[in-house]
């Protein structure tokens, strides 16, 4: 009896798990599906699950816009922003995790508080700052804003990961004659690598998909993939086939990258939980 209940529970949990996973994945699935439909099929009711796939939407998307230009901008901005953010966050998180003062907790909250501000609230000042420093429509400008947006989360995540590293190991390094820099690079970083990798990956994804600042601070020269998608959404009405094709093209690289590194990501995100 007990075994039976257990089996049925297990089946229930499995179904529930798959259900949630499919529910989460459905928009992406539908987007990819739609990208292979013709414009007529794309808006047909009832929606068609089986149809003759066509690459016409992709062909038109490639014809109308230079995908590689946008993709390159996105790569530059997200990799650059992530690299700078990690470089700034590692020492910050290190000092807070291993040399806490009575103000550390407050500092952490204060750091996070900038995330609580709706971006649109600072749109005008940031726009003016970017304009006056000639950073409008440049990858540098967008990378700086993206970096600053994600920095709080990155500091928090690294702080949590660093807290998992036993302090005596770092102290042993200090006793062995390591300088602060050597202690960080030769002892702490190798130990916290899974955490740093998953933090970087998360930052990469956030930058990749960031749309608000991309749309407001860039126009053509530095426009990333989110602007590429947006360019297919409005003026002449909605063309779902092309929009889906553009979106699929935009998310495909990061999706593949995430898939490849998922083992690392899961390990990093559950780093603290499993010990």
């Amino acid at each position: 009896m007990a075994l039976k209940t257990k089996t049925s529970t297990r089946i229930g949990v499995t179904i529930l798990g798959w259900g949630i996973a499919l529910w989460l994945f459905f928009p992406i699935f539908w987007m990819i599906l739609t990208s292979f439909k013709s414009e007529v099929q794309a808006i047909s009711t009832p929606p068609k699950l089986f149809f003759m796939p066509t690459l016409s939407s992709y062909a038109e998307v490639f014809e109308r816009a230079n995908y590689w230009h946008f993709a390159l901008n996105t790569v530059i901005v997200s990799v650059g922003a992530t690299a700078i953010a990690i470089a700034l966050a590692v020492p910050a998180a290190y000092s807070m995790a291993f040399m806490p003062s009575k103000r550390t907790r407050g500092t952490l909250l204060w750091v996070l508080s900038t995330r609580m501000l709706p971006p649109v609230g600072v749109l005008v000042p940031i726009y003016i700052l970017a304009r006056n420093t000639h950073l409008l429509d440049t990858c540098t400008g967008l990378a700086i804003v993206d970096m600053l947006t994600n920095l709080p989360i990155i500091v928090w995540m690294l702080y949590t990961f660093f807290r998992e590293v036993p302090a005596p190991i770092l102290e042993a390094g200090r006793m062995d004659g390591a300088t602060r820099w050597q202690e960080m690079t030769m002892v702490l970083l190798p130990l916290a690598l899974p955490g740093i990798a998953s933090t970087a990956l998360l930052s990469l994804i956030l930058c990749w998909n960031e749309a608000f600042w991309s749309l407001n601070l860039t126009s053509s020269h530095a426009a990333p993939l989110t602007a590429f998608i947006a360019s297919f959404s409005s003026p002449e009405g909605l063309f779902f086939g092309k929009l889906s094709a553009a979106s699929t093209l935009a998310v495909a690289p990061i999706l593949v990258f995430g898939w490849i590194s998922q083992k690392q990501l899961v390990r990093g995100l559950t780093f603290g939980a499993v010990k």
Partner: protein
Amino acid sequence: MATVELKNLRKTYLTEEIIKGISLSIEEREFVVFVGPSGCGKSTLLRMIAGLEDITSGDLLIDGQRVNDVEPGKRGLAMVFQSYALYPHMNVYKNMEFGLKLSGMPEAERRAKIEHVARTLQLEPYLNHKPGQLSGGQRQRVAIGRAIVRNPKVFLFDEPLSNLDAALRGQMRVELSALHRKLGATTIYVTHDQVEAMTMADKIVVLQKGIVEQIGSPLELYHHPRNLFVARFIGSPPMNFFSAIFQGGDAAGSSVQLRDGSSLYVPVTSPGLLPGTKVTVGIRPEHVELASSGPNSGVVEVIERLGAITLVHVRMPDGEIIVVQTDGAVLTDVDTRVSLTLPPRNCHLFAPDGLAFEACHRHPLAA
């Protein structure tokens, strides 16, 4: 080899003073043990010597040089941590090599040193293992090896055996003592385990609440505790205490009246104490003798038979319990009445402020 000198060392954390002015001299090749209950500041003091904690005030001298502001790695010390603190991402060889590499020692010299130390500690088969693949005892050895290989002036040990099981702890204790004899390095060792303190130390420093209660050789502390705290802390099972009234004293001893009215003449001096003062008598369980009849009688409440010895807990008429350590084969049973003999030469007297009366004769082993 080196000397270490602490001059009125203090440590304040936020507003609380944790180390309250400790002065201490550690001679060359000496094995010094800091012992005390948890929270007494012994680990903090060690970490201050190591350089891992700032010194609020006072001077720390190593080989006569003030090192308060010298980086931990430049003080010429090596430390073995309670949790071993091995670098998990490096194998045993690299763990030992890390410090040597940082100091710029050439590769060949490093290899020779590590191999020599690995041989001494029987770590040769494990040089390519990561710490995660080793047992507790092996990790301990690696931690010690990592310390030895740097050829430090002073070894610091922070409760290094407390994560090991009892059997291994006993074995490592002997190994550490042997190693100390062989290397002859000045050693500072922190523990809360008085067996480790008694067996390994040349000199024990008993700490409580950030102050030194007594400094002395193990047997000095055992035979001539300076105050009630040390008397209670050193020795297992702990010393028995009961109150008495001071009657008077002369050059050869002091006389006290016990609660049952009997008198005890203890060979300790009592300068300036007024007759009638309430004092505390202390005697170790191993010094109380059991008799079947006589004065000082009580009822056996608990018997703990440990094989070689027996601990008899006797409830006295005034309600106090006195523990007697006696022969393993003693026939006494629970609820029987026994008499206790208190040999005066083994009794300690403590004044109301907790300080011990000075013994008229020093114990030969505790000169």
